């Protein structure tokens, strides 16, 4: 049970902040809430949000978490932070003093990351909590509206949840509006400046296509449906907006999982070690720290991988080995400068691509596995010839890489108001059962036939869903 008073936490928090500031971390104002395990399970089911709109899937998620917890399959996290300004973190009441200190230090690592990493910039952190609260109010209002009701709201939410990750990956890139797309198309169609135009035949002018919807493939499937299905009611459009806005909160978290957890772990270690803990607390720290950061054989522990890479960057820029000096030249930046720069401008895919070295991969013994029959078999390890493939596969699988990219190509395919989507096939097929069900949700929201162009076992195929149900057609 708890061996501390709230006053202890306040004092330790002051010391942690002192150290964090010395190390150069900056952060949003921080709020800590002490909760018990039931409260924690509740927060986990709703992604930590103090208020959130209701949907049965959160009840399911709560039951699942609770079952796993009750049977001891999985423990509870020591903390949970939400990326907002002020940042809110939940601390488990029953944790020991040392765990609370470690967690507080860890939380400031996350907080620094939320504040400074570029992926979070588009998020308006100061509005996060309010936004979620407004969503909850709106959804509840629709549910209580006698002309709408819970069933109809769920119908839309179920569909929207199935598609919520089919959206833009990098929110830092501005979305180009239709006007601008037309301008660009017109511009691109203009004949090029030709200094010898008097000599050359005049190139033929092709009028640019400006009527097609969408002009350029659109990744925001939900928003596209919202804006282009004229039969959606206002409240239905609003529900799609709500789900999309929520996803935009999660996107940066997904895109930086490894960096973010690694960063927080890197700093909690530095901070706690600089606190000069008494021996008992220090020993407990070593145990806990290693529990969090131990690799899970056969899997990737984002805490461990991230932590290792941050340490490796720092080391290479502070005391590079002779081989590294020979290969990369003398570092132009200090280790501290380098890691602070990386935490600002990278996300997981770019971070791994730039900073996960062959040596580190070998040290971590990373491998690639694939399915053979009903077994998963290692087919590449991080040796001289394999490491690049393994690294590529890892990058493909982190963050939003595990979500297929599907873009809207045409909203009026065959002049039929058929929604034509295209899956950007990168060697990985869609799981057909899930694709079938998900496309039925698109059909539900779009109201007319929907087709997805993809590739199944090397053959171009068209998955269709219309009033007769699901079908797969081969394409030439």
């Amino acid at each position, binding site marked *: 049970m708890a061996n501390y008073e709230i006053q202890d936490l306040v004092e330790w928090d002051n010391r942690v902040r002192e150290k964090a500031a010395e190390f150069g971390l900056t952060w949003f104002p921080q709020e800590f809430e002490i909760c018990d395990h039931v*409260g924690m399970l509740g927060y986990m089911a709703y992604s930590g949000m103090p208020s959130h709109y209701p949907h049965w899937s959160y009840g399911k998620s709560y039951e699942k978490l609770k079952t796993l917890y009750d049977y001891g399959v999985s423990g509870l996290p020591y903390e949970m932070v939400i990326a907002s300004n002020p940042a809110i973190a939940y601390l488990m009441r029953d944790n020991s003093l040392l765990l609370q200190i470690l967690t507080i230090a860890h939380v400031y690592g996350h907080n620094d990351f939320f504040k400074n990493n570029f992926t979070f910039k588009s998020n308006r952190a100061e509005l996060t909590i309010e936004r979620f609260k407004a969503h909850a109010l709106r959804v509840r209002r629709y549910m209580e509206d006698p002309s709408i009701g819970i069933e109809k709201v769920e119908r839309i939410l179920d569909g929207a949840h199935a598609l919520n990750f089919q959206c833009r990956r990098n929110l830092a890139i501005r979305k180009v509006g239709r006007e601008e797309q037309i301008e660009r198309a017109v511009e691109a169609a203009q004949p090029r400046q030709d200094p010898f135009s008097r000599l050359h035949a005049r190139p033929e002018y092709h009028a640019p296509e400006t009527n097609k919807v969408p002009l350029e493939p659109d990744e925001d499937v939900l928003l596209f449906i919202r804006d282009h299905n004229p039969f959606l009611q206002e409240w239905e459009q609003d529900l799609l907006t709500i789900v999309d806005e929520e996803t935009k909160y999660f996107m940066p978290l997904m895109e930086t999982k490894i960096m973010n957890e690694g960063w927080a772990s890197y700093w909690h270690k530095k901070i706690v070690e600089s606190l000069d803990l008494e021996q008992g607390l220090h020993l407990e720290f070593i145990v806990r720290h290693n529990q969090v950061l131990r690799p899970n054989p056969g899997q990737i522990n984002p805490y461990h991988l991230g932590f290792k890479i941050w340490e490796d960057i720092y080391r290479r820029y502070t005391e590079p080995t002779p081989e590294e000096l020979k290969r990369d030249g003398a570092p132009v930046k200090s280790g501290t400068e380098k890691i602070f720069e990386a935490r600002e401008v990278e996300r997981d895919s770019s971070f791994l691509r730039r900073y996960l070295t062959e040596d580190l991969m070998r040290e971590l013994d990373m491998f690639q596995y694939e399915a053979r029959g009903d077994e998963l078999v290692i087919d590449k390890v991080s040796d001289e010839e394999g490491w690049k493939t393994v690294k590529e596969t890892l990058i493909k699988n982190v963050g939003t890489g595990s*979500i297929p990219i599907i873009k809207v190509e045409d909203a009026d395919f065959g002049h039929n108001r058929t929604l034509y989507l295209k899956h950007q096939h990168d060697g990985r097929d869609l799981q057909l059962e899930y694709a079938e069900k998900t496309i039925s949700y698109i059909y539900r929201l779009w109201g007319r036939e929907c087709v997805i162009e993809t590739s199944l076992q090397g053959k171009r195929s068209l998955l269709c869903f219309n009033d007769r149900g699901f079908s797969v057609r081969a394409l030439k």
Partner: protein
Amino acid sequence: MTSDTIFREYRISDAERSDRSAGDRLRHREKVRESIRENIADIIAEESIIGKNKDKIIKVPLRGIKEYRFIYGDNAPGVGQGDGNAQPGQVVGKTGKDAPGQGEGKAGDRPGVDYYETDVTLDELIEIMFEDLELPNLERRALREIETDRFAKRKGYRHVGIRVRLDKRRTARQRVKRVLATQHRRATQGLETQKDANGNERRFPFHQDDLRYKHLETDVREESNAAVVCIMDTSGSMDTMKKYLARSFFFLLYQFISTRYRNVEIVFVAHHTEANEVTEDEFFHKGEAGGTFISSGYQKALDIIAERYHPSLWNLYAFHCSDGDNFDSDNPAALRAAKELSEICNLFGYGEIKPLGSRYYESSMLNVFRRLEAPNFQAVLIERKEDIWPSFKAFLSKDRVKE
């Protein structure tokens, strides 16, 4: 340094008030029940649950409440971390359930295949099954019940009774009352003391009026018995698919009857050209070769009823499943026996099982039974799983009470 950190202390009252997921959990559970109801045909077909203990736990796959999204299939390679000596060719897991993933994500931040099944007891399953079954005819009728004397129940006290039921405590209390009343009277009326000549207390014996006996009443309980006679054609033409359909039907029937009667017995009669009483296992799994005399099955059922389940003591439900491929010469005898069965049973039914497409070139008993005019007889055609539930409802709607 930015402004001060805020610590919000744990408060029990907050924690108790904040069961925020209650509504969503309830809604989720409703979905689970709905999903079970939709898949009930599969569940009863897959499990051996006829006549099983009500506490038996059944694993039910929940199809309706998965959260689907676009995900990659099996040909997507993954990356893992080894313990230092990973070699190509090593097996690291199985596809499907325990595929090594990317470590645990935060709630809802990573799509994945979600496998989902739940455990329900048979009892719950049946409850779910019948909860939306509208059976107005059956509900309104009084089921035939047999009155039986059950154990006796204590009810009050009497002045008269037999010796063994004497309530000593109450009897003693009556005497004490009398003693006190006597003392009071003596004191107020100045009568002589209670001492006798020798100075001893005078005896104050029990009087007949003091005696109290416990009174017992025999409790009349309504006992209800029912027997379900399952008759099935096990001739060569009844293949596994047909038996599977028959089995689902029998299961529903048995479970439904069990919810209505205290004591339900089940009899399995298998017939081809001859009929035998068999166990459940044999009934569903043993195939026989040869032709079919439906009348043999009915006759056997009649014999068993005559021997063990007298219609005045038992509510009888008989149901027969066949593919209708009877020898023509047997039809009159079958019709006669069927008439007899419908006379003694509350309900008698015939289910013709013809998987889709086969009904056009095979002979059918449905035409024969059309001539059977009994109000409690129902013939249904079962072509696929989806037909079972409607046929079952149609069958029950004919239930009648025997006087």
